[in-house]
């Protein structure tokens, strides 16, 4: 209990509560093309009521789904990316960062928080795809690393929600080494026998798949998420053939033995707290 009191002192609810969805707007499902009132869609956890299509959502939405009363405390909220390589392609990396920060009101592509799921402690690291494609740079690696330190200190299970296009090219080899960093750090969590649940959501690809996302004690997928190392376009170019239907989707990945389960977003919280209890008792 002590960690919770200490870090939530003064912070009762999320600081980044999304503004309520205004009434009168409509959501058009990209999968079945049917429309739903936007507020209904949001209340339904952004899952299409007609076809179960799971819309991509951000960390704020996941936290709201997972944590009791939407209460959680953010860990290391003040980390942002440096530009160690002075990287510039068609745009300066620093400009890209500033634009993304402004557009998303996020510091980088991941937020790490601690809270309770039906009364069970849980640390969640959740990626935000809207921030430069959820790409993994030094901040993602460092925040995961520090979240693991927190889990180790207070003996709390970890869940990482992956949603990423892979490495952040503008950080070049620094980005690559975040794969080694996060994986190495996870060995400490494993050694301490603290559960790590990896939730792979649409899309989880590249260096994220090839590191922490595939290293869960449990690997769980959201329905129909793209989960891949090489993206479908690259694979298609390589083999020069059309890809089979459902290729690299969560159901396909489960059939090939790399996911423990696929969990519908509406069942996420209840299944999660069930699992946390099972690990505990």
């Amino acid at each position: 209990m002590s960690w919770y009191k200490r870090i939530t002192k003064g912070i009762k609810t999320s600081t980044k509560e999304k503004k309520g969805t205004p009434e009168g707007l409509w959501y058009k499902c990209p999968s079945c093309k049917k429309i739903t009132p936007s507020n209904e869609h949001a209340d339904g956890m952004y899952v299409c009521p007609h076809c179960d299509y799971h819309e991509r959502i951000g960390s704020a939405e996941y936290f709201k789904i997972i944590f009791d009363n939407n209460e959680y405390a953010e860990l290391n909220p003040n980390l942002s990316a440096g530009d160690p390589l002075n990287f510039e392609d068609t745009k300066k990396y620093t400009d890209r960062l500033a634009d993304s920060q402004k557009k998303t009101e996020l510091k980088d592509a991941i937020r790490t928080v601690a809270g309770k799921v039906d009364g069970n402690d849980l640390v969640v690291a959740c990626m935000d795809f809207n921030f430069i494609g959820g790409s993994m740079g030094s901040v993602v690696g460092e925040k995961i690393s520090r979240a693991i330190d927190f889990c180790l200190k207070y003996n709390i299970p970890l869940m990482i929600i992956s949603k990423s296009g892979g490495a952040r090219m503008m950080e070049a080899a620094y980005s690559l080494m975040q794969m080694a960093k996060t994986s190495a750090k996870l060995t400490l969590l494993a050694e301490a026998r603290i559960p790590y649940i990896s939730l792979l959501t649409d899309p989880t690809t590249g260096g994220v798949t090839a590191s922490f996302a595939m290293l869960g004690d449990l690997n769980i997928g959201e329905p129909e998420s793209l989960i891949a190392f090489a993206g479908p376009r690259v694979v298609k170019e390589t083999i020069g053939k059309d890809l089979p239907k459902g290729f690299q989707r969560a159901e396909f990945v489960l059939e090939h033995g790399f996911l423990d389960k696929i969990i519908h977003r509406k069942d996420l919280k209840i299944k999660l707290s069930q699992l946390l209890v099972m690990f505990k008792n």
Partner: protein
Amino acid sequence: MTYLDFEKPIAELIEQQEKMKQAAAKSGVDISKTLQELDEKIVEQRTKVYKNLTPWQRVQASRHPERPYTLAYIEAITEGNFMELHGDRTVKDDKAMVGGFGSVNGQTVMFIGQQKGTNTKTRQYRNFGMPNPEGYRKALRLMKLAEKFNKPVVTFIDTPGAYPGLEAEERGQGEAIARNLFEMAKLRVPIICIIIGEGASGGALGIGVGDRVLMLENTWYSVISPESCSSILWRSWDFKEKAAIGLKLTADDMMGQKLIDGIIREPIGGAHTSPAEMFSIVKTEILSHIAELKQMKPDERIKQRIDKFCSMGVVVED
């Protein structure tokens, strides 16, 4: 001999020398002094060219068709005392990833590395040095074998990337690489990783988590190849030189970023001009690092290894 564009001045001198030799053989005139002068000129030219390579030229040098590949290093370093071991015990034997026990001055070492081919046929056989998941799982199996019998591991990295094929995805390329990163971080024996050619992304890192990560002078290591980086960020293949500069992927750059532990100098004109000298330099490095790492207790070594990788990255905290 194959010469890269920037090696033209060297090629011209060598050609000149060849012609003189032929002429001298015909006429019987003694030209040994001129030949010797030309030899010196060639060395001078090689030094000059290789000292001033741009990052993109460095990438080209790392792919030089005559550059020695993994098995050549292993055969030379072990003086033939190499026992290649095959298979991942699950799916198949990946020819793009080789490994086995070798003896170096009486010390048994587990050698592992990506293998490229030397002609059209063997290039295909080796899948251009692009391993499938079973390659990474074979590598891990061999590392575990080394751990069990307390033998140090040496990996040679030379790959344009993990193979992005359909079966590779079905069999979990991402999981295979991830598992290796995790297991290598806590392997109880010394691990030395040497980039001898191309160090492309996760496919390279998949056998690249070690106590010592060393790069040969004319190699590159990054998250993506300059060509792919150009095509993704600039949406064109024409910016590879610029991408090569921006990625800071040379050995010197990587050392400056503290992402590797050392640089191994190559013979003048690159590894391909004198493979035997290259092998001997690498052998000396391997032996000295093994000796150093053996001094440490496994727990101490693992802690240092994990701490090293965990310190990588640049963030701003306000």
